[in-house]
C-alpha cells in the first residue's frame, strides 16, 4: 500500500520539466502561438528524445510500455509549460493500435509513434463528447464518409485514428484521397484541433479485439491526460500569482500581505491539492482498478475542468491589469485550461458518464 510517485517517475517528470524550460520558454511559446498551426519541430524532437511519445507504446514495439500514471505526469508537465507539441493524439493512437491493430499495423506504426517520427491525430470527439451539428462518421464497405470534428493533435498528424458511429476504429493516412482536412482555430494556439470530412475515403480498419472497449479506454485515458494537463497549467498559474504577490507593492506593502489576496491564493491551493490526488488516483485506476477506470476518469476530467477554471480566473485576478496582457503570457495557461475543459466531454457530459458508469441512470 503506497500512494506516492516513485523516484523514477519524479525523475522523468523533472527531466521533461527542465527540457521544456530550455527548448520552449515563454518567448518561444509566444512565437509558435502566432503561427497558423502550432507546429514546433524542435519541441517535438526534444519530447521524442525523452521518450514522451513512447510512453504508452508496448516494449515489444519499441516503446517504453509504461502506465497511464506515467503518461499523466508527462501531460501535467506539458500543461505546466503550455508546450506546443502533440502528445494526446499519439498516446491515444498507441492505445487503439495496441488493443485493436493487426500485427502488421502494429509493426508498422507503433515503432514510428514511439520514436516520434509519426504523429497521430485522433478523431473520437463524437463518441466521447456527443455530436455537434450533424457530425459523425459512417463506415461502409471499407470506406468512410461523414464528418469528424475536434480532431486532437491535428496539425502534425501523419495519420488519424477515426472512430465510426458504431464504435469501429479506422486508420486513415493524412493524404488519403477524398479526405478534406480543415484546421479549427481555438482560443488555445499551443495545440491544434481540426475537422476531417470524409468523401468515400478508403480506410484500414483496426480489425482485432473489442473496438468499443478500446474506444472507451481512449476516451478515459484521454480524459485523465487532459485533467493532468490542466493540473500542470493551473499549478503554474498559482505559483506565478504567489510570486507576483510577494513582489508587487501597493499602499506601501506587498499585495500578498493583503488578506484578500492571500485568501484567493489559499483557496486556489486548497482546491488544487486534492485535485492532484484525484488525478493520480484516476490515472492509477486506468491500469490497476479497471472497475473504477471510467468513473474516475470522468470525475477527474470534470473536476479539473471546474478547479482549472477557478484557478485560471483567480490567478489572473491576483495580477491586476498586467494579468490579462500578452506581455505576462499568463493567458496561454488560461486558454490551455479553457480548451482542456471542453475536449472529450465538458464537465456536465463527463459527470453524466460518471453516473452511467455506476448504473445510476441508463446510458
Amino acid at each position, binding site marked *: 500500500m503506497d500512494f506516492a510517485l516513485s523516484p523514477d517517475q519524479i525523475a522523468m517528470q523533472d527531466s521533461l520539466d527542465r527540457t521544456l524550460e530550455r527548448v520552449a520558454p515563454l518567448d518561444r511559446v509566444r512565437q509558435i502561438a502566432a503561427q497558423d498551426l502550432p507546429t514546433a519541430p524542435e519541441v517535438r524532437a526534444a519530447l521524442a528524445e525523452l521518450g514522451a511519445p513512447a510512453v504508452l507504446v508496448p516494449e515489444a514495439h519499441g516503446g517504453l510500455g509504461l502506465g497511464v500514471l506515467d503518461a499523466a505526469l508527462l501531460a501535467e508537465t506539458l500543461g505546466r509549460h503550455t508546450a506546443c507539441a502533440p502528445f494526446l493524439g499519439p498516446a491515444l493512437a498507441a492505445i487503439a493500435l495496441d488493443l485493436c491493430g493487426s500485427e502488421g499495423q502494429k509493426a508498422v506504426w507503433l515503432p514510428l509513434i514511439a520514436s516520434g517520427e509519426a504523429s497521430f491525430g485522433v478523431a473520437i470527439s463524437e463518441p466521447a463528447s456527443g455530436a455537434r451539428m450533424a457530425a459523425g462518421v459512417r463506415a461502409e464497405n471499407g470506406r468512410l464518409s461523414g464528418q469528424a470534428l475536434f480532431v486532437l493533435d491535428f496539425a502534425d498528424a501523419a495519420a488519424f485514428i477515426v472512430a465510426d458511429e458504431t464504435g469501429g476504429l479506422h486508420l486513415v493516412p493524412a493524404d488519403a484521397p477524398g479526405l478534406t482536412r480543415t484546421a479549427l482555430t481555438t482560443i488555445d494556439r499551443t495545440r491544434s484541433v481540426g475537422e476531417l470530412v470524409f468523401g468515400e475515403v478508403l480506410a484500414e480498419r483496426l480489425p482485432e479485439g473489442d473496438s468499443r472497449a478500446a474506444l472507451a479506454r481512449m476516451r478515459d485515458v484521454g480524459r485523465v491526460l487532459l485533467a493532468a494537463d490542466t493540473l500542470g497549467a493551473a499549478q503554474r498559474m498559482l505559483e506565478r500569482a504567489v510570486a507576483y504577490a510577494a513582489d508587487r507593492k501597493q499602499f506601501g506593502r506587498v499585495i500578498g500581505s493583503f488578506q484578500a489576496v*492571500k485568501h484567493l491564493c489559499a*483557496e486556489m491551493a*486548497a482546491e488544487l491539492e486534492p485535485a492532484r490526488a484525484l488525478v493520480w488516483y484516476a490515472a492509477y485506476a486506468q491500469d490497476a482498478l479497471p472497475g473504477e477506470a471510467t468513473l474516475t476518469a470522468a470525475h477527474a476530467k470534470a473536476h479539473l475542468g471546474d478547479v482549472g477554471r477557478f484557478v485560471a480566473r483567480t490567478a489572473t485576478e491576483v495580477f491586476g491589469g498586467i494579468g490579462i496582457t500578452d506581455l505576462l503570457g499568463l493567458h496561454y495557461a488560461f486558454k490551455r485550461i479553457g480548451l482542456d475543459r471542453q475536449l472529450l466531454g465538458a464537465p456536465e457530459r463527463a459527470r453524466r458518464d460518471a453516473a452511467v458508469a455506476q448504473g445510476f441512470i441508463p446510458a
Partner: protein
Amino acid sequence: MDLAYDATYTVFRDEVRDFLRTHRDRMPKRSGHRPTDEQIAWQTLLIEHGYAARTIPEAYGGHGAEPDILKSRIIAEAFAEAGAPGGLANQGISMLVPTLLELGTEAQKTTLIPPTLRGELVWCQGYSEPGAGSDLASLTTRGEDDGENFIINGQKIWTSTAHAADMIFCLVRTEPDAPKHEGISYLIFSMKTPGIEVRPLLTMTGAAEFNEVFFTDVKVPKTQIVGGRGQGWFVANATLKHERGMLGDPNAAHARLQAIIEILKTETLDGQRLMDHPLYLDRLMQLQARVISMQANGLRLLTAAQRKEPVGMAGLIVKLQGCELNHQLAALAIDALGELGVLYHGSPHQRDGGVWQHRYMFDLGLIIGGGTAQIQKNIIAERGLGMPREPKLAKV
C-alpha cells in the same frame, strides 16, 4: 504507487471482519454526551482486541500494539463497512490523551488515561473565552498563585460537553507579566471543584451542544499542570493539531455521500426518481468527485505518515476542504428533498430523523470551531505558500 494490501494485511482484515461478525449483538447504540454502560463495555472489548486505543501502552490502559498506520486504516475501513460503532472519539480521547502521552507526568498518565480511554472519565476543552476566539492567546482567565494552588477566576465559552463532563483541560493565564504567548498554563481539574458554574447555551440545532463556564475562586493544586508554567500555549498547540486531524475526515463524507445516493434512488418527485433529475444528479456527481479527491488526498497523507515524511499542503487543506464538503453534502440532501427537507422536530414525513438539517446547522459550527475557515486560509497561505504573515498585534 500500489493500493493493494499485502498478505499479512489481508489476514489482519479478515480477523477484524470476523470479530465484527461474531460480536454484532454487543454493538451499542449512539448516545448523547456521556457514554452509556453498553458503550463502555464495547469500548473495553475494542481495547482488548486492539481496535481502540491500539497503540497506547498497556500501562496506561491501551492495547499496546506497535504503531502501524495501515492496520489502523484497515480497522477503520472494516468498521465503516460493517456499519459498526468504532472506538470512542470524544475530546478526552482524541485531544487530552495524546497531549498527556506527549507531555504529561507519569502520575497523570497512569491515573487519568485509563478511565478516559474506557469512556468513564469525560472531559471538556476550556480554551475559548468571550474575548479570545481566533486570537486565543489573548485569553484573560487568570490563575493566581497562593503558594500551593492556582486560584482561578474568569470565563470560558463554547465549551462543548461541559455540562456532562467530569474534568476540564483548561488554558489559564498564570504569568500576568509575561508576553501574551508565554503567560499561559495548561491546567486539568475536576468540574466538581467548588466555584465552577456551567450554563448551557442553546444552539440553532435546538440542542445545548456547548456552554459558558464561569470560574469564581476555583482552587486548583499547582501539581495539576501539564507541561511547565507558562508553557500552556505550546501544550495547547499540541492538542489543536490532534483536533484538526479529527475534523474534515473524508470517511465521514463518504458515508454521507452513500446516504444521499440512497435518497436519490428511493425518493420521487412527480413520480420520477430524483436520480433521473439531471440537476440533482449533476450536483451529486460534483460532490462525489470531491469526496474521491479527499479520499485520495487521505491516501497521500497515509503514505507520507508511513514514510515519516512531512505532509505539507495536502495536510493543511483537510480541515477547510473537508468541513466545507460535509456541509455541501448536507445542503444537497436538503435541496433534493425539497419541502420534505425542512421537516424537523419529529414532524410527520420527516426523513432520516431530520439529520440533514441538523448536520447542515451543526456543520456550520465545525467550519467555525477548531480554527475558522478564514484562519485556515491564513495558515494555508502562510505555512503552505510562504506568503507574508498576518501583522502581529500589540502584546497583552
